[in-house]
């Protein structure tokens, strides 16, 4: 018998999609039964109380968590999101309900052995409820009490060789697309650099030293499967510099219907016979492709590497061999001054270990932003406030046409004094000699 009646939540058990309510009820029942005789370190019916407090919020249309919460482990300034219920008498199981961020592996590949160990730990010292994964990438342990934090941290670091993720005004947990582990579009090893930079900047991740939060994300190509361009202050997007590789035989295979376009992604509907002219050549954003006499040609000088043709004919068209990545800066959600996506900062840079060139740019961006950034000002907002020009100066990057989608249309142009002959020191009397009042 459930501890709290949940008529509203019960409705979410119907329908075909996996129901989080059914899953929570299952965990609640398993904790009640406790077949493995776990000595639960937090309230045994905490999952019942999650359902209870959530049902109350459904009824009221309001949250029942108190504001904020500052808890953590010694040595770190982040990693744990403290949280307390505002109805602790009614729901003692969630009076403390802190969330722990656990740094996930690259591409989120796991062994069952590792996951089972994590689950055993979390069942013992937490609620048993998780989020796989938080939007930034972390494994999320949802719900435990303050005294358990150091215990869990000890266990993670000593027995799992596993650290916490980031939170607060610091470098948050970097994340990546699966990259070359299982994608033929990957222009660099996203997991390798994500791992290397996560390790390199552990200090920046665990001890908030920034004006505000800062995120890295690594996409192997412009398809952006980890959405770096929208969700990271510095976004790394793979690309290539030489020619797209064309396998004319495979092109013929697509035209002849032997291979399904887009690897069969649209097979749920009859779109007619594949028409290379209409579906590829005619959709190329720069119009740099040609299909004549059964041969496909690309004027690579005019190709913007949008991925469209490669996405449609993955067996026939392949990324080039001269590979690297572009770096974009400043993406953020709307608060405070409006949403931003990343703006192109470095058009092309090699992504080779030990990534020294890339680190140099990252650290130059940080030096500038840590010095100039206002309290709770994201990089994107600093770029708006001080200007993209300042970002270029800070990173020692020469302005190039690729830095803009279009040039400015207003004439409010600043000049540096040294660029202007004679400078700014002018004498009005000198002027009056030629111009009477």
């Amino acid at each position: 018998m459930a501890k709290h009646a949940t008529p509203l939540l019960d409705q979410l058990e119907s329908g075909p999609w996996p129901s989080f309510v059914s899953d929570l009820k299952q965990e609640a029942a398993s904790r009640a039964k406790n077949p493995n005789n776990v000595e639960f370190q937090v309230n045994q019916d905490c999952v019942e109380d999650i359902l209870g407090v959530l049902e109350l919020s459904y009824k009221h249309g309001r949250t029942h968590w108190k504001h904020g919460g500052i808890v953590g482990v010694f040595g770190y300034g982040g990693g744990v999101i403290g949280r307390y219920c505002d109805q602790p008498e009614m729901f003692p199981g969630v009076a403390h309900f802190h969330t722990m961020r656990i740094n996930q592996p690259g591409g989120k590949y796991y062994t069952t052995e590792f996951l089972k160990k994590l689950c055993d730990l979390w069942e013992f010292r937490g609620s048993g409820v998780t989020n796989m994964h938080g939007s930034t990438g972390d494994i999320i342990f949802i719900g435990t009490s303050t005294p358990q934090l150091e215990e869990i941290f000890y266990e993670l670091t000593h027995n799992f060789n596993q650290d916490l993720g980031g939170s607060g005004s610091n470098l948050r947990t970097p994340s990546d697309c699966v990259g070359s582990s299982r994608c033929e579009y990957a222009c660099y090893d996203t997991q390798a650099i994500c791992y290397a930079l996560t390790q390199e900047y552990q200090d920046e991740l665990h001890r908030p030293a920034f004006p505000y939060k800062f995120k890295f994300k690594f996409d192997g190509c412009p398809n952006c499967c980890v959405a770096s361009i929208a969700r990271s202050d510095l976004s790394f997007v793979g690309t290539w510099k030489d020619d797209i590789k064309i396998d004319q035989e495979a092109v013929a295979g697509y035209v002849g219907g032997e291979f399904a376009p887009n690897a069969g992604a649209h097979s749920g509907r009859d779109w007619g016979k594949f028409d290379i002219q209409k579906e590829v050549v005619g959709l190329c954003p720069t119009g740099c492709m040609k299909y004549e006499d059964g041969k496909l040609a690309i004027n690579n000088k005019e190709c913007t590497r949008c991925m469209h043709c490669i996405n449609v004919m993955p067996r026939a068209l392949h990324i080039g061999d001269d590979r690297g990545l572009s770096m974009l800066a400043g993406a953020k959600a709307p608060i405070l001054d409006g949403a931003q996506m990343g703006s192109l900062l470095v058009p092309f840079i090699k992504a080779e270990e030990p990534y020294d060139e890339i680190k140099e740019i990252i650290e130059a961006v940080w030096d500038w932003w840590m010095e100039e950034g206002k309290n709770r000002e994201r990089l994107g907002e600093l770029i708006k406030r001080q200007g993209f020009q300042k970002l270029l100066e800070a990173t020692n990057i020469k302005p190039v046409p690729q830095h803009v989608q279009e040039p400015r249309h207003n004439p409010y142009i600043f000049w540096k004094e040294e660029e202007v002959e004679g400078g700014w020191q002018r004498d009005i009397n000198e002027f009056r000699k030629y111009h009477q009042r």
Partner: protein
Amino acid sequence: MPTVEFGGKSFTVDEDGFIDDYTNWSEEWVQYVKKEEGIDELNEEHKKVVSVLREYYEKNGIAPMVRVLSKVTGFKLKHIYELFPSGPGKGACKMAGLPKPTGCV
């Protein structure tokens, strides 16, 4: 809100052990937080961080940014963590009697 007794004084605190009111700060409060925050021995450097935080808060009505705290005290962030293992927010601001840090922590 719970209360804690320490050194013959009583303090009202929230769940995270932050004092309810800046003006209720006292030497006993410092001693209490020292125990809570895993600090063995209070030295001049701890006191300097606490007094800088209090002066800044009194003047500006907010806690200083980490960078400002480092600049004014001359202590690198690493050293601030050596002094206050939970860091400048949870450790030092708590000891200085400042309000609990807020935002997307």
